[in-house]
């Protein structure tokens, strides 16, 4: 944090510094309090609307009803989060691993990129809701199609970013490697891969939330467990409180997954200021 303030006249240096530090503390506190109060205000508004407009519980629940459901059905919600989380994480690992490997091939074999990149773009244009039934037909009713959907949805952004990152090498650093008679392997591991890491992480942060979406969409089609299945069941039963509670559990997991990747990025990419995704 590089805060600066103009020092006012007619005041000692110490007094000015003390005033500056007090103002800085106030700013830090405000940065934490304001978002919290914003969320609280939204919840109050939601509760008031449900109460004033007398919305029936099968249309929309009050925040208190959602909180009660979160508490009473916590075990059941967690039991349904588990398969979704597993599908999302496995799909994330699989899709990103494949994307990194293929990006490496593309960068070293231009003809492979020219031949197969259009195929990748074509597959990417199929909407997730259309991919899901195709994969369920191919892979059955278990976890596999959900993992495959999560993997596919992660694959494209990572592939594009990784190819860009591997090619974003400083041309003078490339010339340096040539003057040093570095092999292609050395150029890849010493120069290309570290250059690509910030690009890779911005893709991984996107993938962390889309992988969860992929798993949930996969569960909409032929599944009895998972966040996606629970959403469908709650909707058909007009159990709006359970529906909202399920959605909250699903997005909390997405946020947690995103934060884990962000933390990992801070550990690995230390040489540049963190880029806001």
């Amino acid at each position, binding site marked *: 944090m590089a805060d600066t303030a103009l020092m006012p006249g007619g005041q000692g240096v110490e007094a000015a510094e003390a005033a500056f530090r007090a103002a800085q503390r106030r700013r830090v506190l405000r940065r934490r309090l304001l978002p919290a109060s914003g969320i609280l205000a939204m919840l109050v508004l939601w509760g008031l609307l449900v109460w004033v407009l007398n919305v029936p519980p099968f249309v929309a629940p009050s925040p208190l009803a959602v909180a009660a459901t979160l508490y009473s059905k916590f075990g059941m919600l967690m039991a349904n989060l588990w398969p979704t989380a597993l599908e999302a994480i496995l799909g994330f690992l699989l899709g990103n691993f494949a994307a990194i490997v293929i990006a490496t091939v593309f960068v070293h074999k231009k003809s492979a990129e020219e031949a197969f990149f259009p195929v990748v773009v074509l597959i990417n244009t199929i909407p997730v809701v259309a991919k899901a039934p195709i994969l369920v037909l191919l892979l059955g009713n278990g976890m596999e199609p959900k993992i495959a959907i999560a993997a596919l949805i992660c694959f494209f952004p990572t592939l594009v970013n990784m190819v860009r990152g591997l090619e974003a090498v400083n041309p*003078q650093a490339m010339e*340096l490697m040539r*003057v040093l*008679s*570095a092999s292609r392997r050395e*150029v890849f591991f010493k120069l290309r891969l570290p250059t690509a*890491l910030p690009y890779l992480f911005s893709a991984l942060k996107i993938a962390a939330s889309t992988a969860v979406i992929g798993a949930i969409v996969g569960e909409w089609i032929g599944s009895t467990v998972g966040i996606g299945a629970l959403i469908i069941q709650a909707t058909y039963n007009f159990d709006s409180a359970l529906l909202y509670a399920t959605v909250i559990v699903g997005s909390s997991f997405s946020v947690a997954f995103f934060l884990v990747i962000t933390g990992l990025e801070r550990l690995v990419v230390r*040489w*540049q200021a963190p880029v806001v995704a």
Partner: protein
Amino acid sequence: MATATAVTAARPAPASAPAEAAIACRNVAVRFVTERRTVTALEDVSFEIAAGSFLSLLGPSGCGKSTLLRVVADLVQPTEGRVTVLGGSAEAARRDHALGFVFQDAALLPWRTAIQNVTLPLEVGGRSALPAGSPTPTELLAMVGLAGWENAYPHELSGGMRQRVSIARALLGGPKVLLMDEPFGALDEITRDHLNEELLRIWQETRTTILFVTHSIYEATFLGESVLVLAANPGRVREMVAIDLPRDRSLAIRETEPFMRIAARLRRLLGD
């Protein structure tokens, strides 16, 4: 044909002894084919530089001075002519790790600390150990005035400090030829003056042959034992100018009459 020989005051390189030249270019031409036309970057460039001497390459932008440096570094293949570096081909000199190159932007790897950047040449190209008796990375950082900054990352260093790290990296392993491509061009004048003095000191300590590209008349005159003036469109040799100033130079020499006379002559050569 414009042939010129870098004659130094201390050690004259006789034209009849080409074996003594560290770098020799004979009728070098470089052409680039583009969609619209074929561009001649260099045409019929010939010169020689004696081992251990300091040659400035001076010319307007687009005269191909950077291209010429890249031909010597085996980064660009000449279309015509022959380049001899240390008695063999440029490629052989590169594979022997006899060349050091300093780029205009320091080209440091941002994920490596200063000392890790300096040791990079030991990790690639099949060279694992320093030649016996050559300075260690720590000693090189001290030589460029960065003792105590070993573990700083490039983003924590100023532009001048980054360029010092890249000079230390180029000096690792004691290269016989140091090629510098406008290394101080992006720095402010005060830092640049300071680094010019330091470079002279480093050159006198290491006795390496230096080929220094610049578009600053003062820098070329202050640093070089001779200046190869290039003209543009196409890039060609205008004249080889010997700088008969003492080797031990301080910045104050730039205000002396002989220095000004040489600078004025170079300016006329560039203007013609």
